[in-house]
């Protein structure tokens, strides 16, 4: 198992990465797909540079977190920054759910089809 900075016992670094903020932007789901809209530029924070590099192809938030070895909350904050600056775009999970919380049958059919073809 890979171990993030939290386990190494260095939470201070996390506060540095996020500029002291701890409130994550919950707009980003674990499986929101992130896509870079620009190339990194000189002087950018290194984590932002890494995210822009990783997300040249669509990449889920959780994969970004695993690659950066940073907790989900921290990555949500970093993604929020980049999103506010228009440097990434986000493809959110389909929110369309029926009243009782089940996904639509059309979506489930597509999932079944994909699984059966594995």
């Amino acid at each position, binding site marked *: *198992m*890979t171990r*993030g900075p*939290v*386990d190494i016992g260095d*939470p201070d670094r*996390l506060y540095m990465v996020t500029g002291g903020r*701890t409130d994550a932007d*919950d707009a980003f*789901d*674990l*499986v*929101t*797909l992130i896509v870079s809209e620009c190339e990194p530029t000189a002087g950018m924070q290194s984590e932002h540079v890494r995210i822009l590099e990783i997300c*040249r*192809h*669509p*990449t*889920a938030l*959780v*994969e970004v*977190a*695993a*690659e950066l070895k940073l*907790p*989900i*909350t921290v990555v949500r904050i970093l993604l929020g920054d980049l999103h506010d600056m228009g440097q990434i775009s986000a*493809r959110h*999970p*389909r*929110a369309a*759910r*029926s009243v*009782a*919380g*089940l*996904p*639509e*049958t059309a979506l*489930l*059919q*597509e*999932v*079944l*089809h*994909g*699984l*059966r073809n*594995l």
Partner: protein
Amino acid sequence: MGSATSELPARRTPLADDAETGLKIVVVGGFGVGKTTLVRSVSEIRPLNTEEVMTQAGAGIDETAGVERKTTTTVAFDFGRISLNERMVLYLFGAPGQERFWFLWDRLFSGTLGAVVLVDTRRMQDSWYAIDRLEHHNTPFVVAVNRFDDDTDRFTLEEIRQALALGEHVPMIDCDARVRSSCKDVLVSLVDHLYTMALAQEGTP
């Protein structure tokens, strides 16, 4: 098989550029029941590990005079990925069943399609809490019994259903978490279950 699969390229295979919809399924179960094995068996990438931390102001006991203490809870989980087609990608999360994990459930796994409860018949009690929590969160689930080689008692699925006090509506399936086709069957049974429920709800004749 082990050595060949452990030499996957260090770079992740990127998703298709048209990928637009991420979906989630959570695999829950006690320690050592085979969650990571199941994820690895069906994932197109070598399973990755990540974590969520939650910081809370410490309660009275932890406080030393004038110093504010914070407690940090860390929940680590593995995940893998299955591209279902050019646009849809399914993420499988192997998550520990312990208490602190459920504290973060809504934050991490709201909107999940459903869950697989992986059961080891030698330690069925490890599953009770997870089942209780899933019911509480109204998350549809199936129960998959990971048949280990030394599972000599061979409880039948019906016996296990009774031991876990599962309603008749909860699908149960035998599996071998090491075998890809078996894990695929588990996922299909979950999504089939969801489909049946969704169909009934839409009131289709």
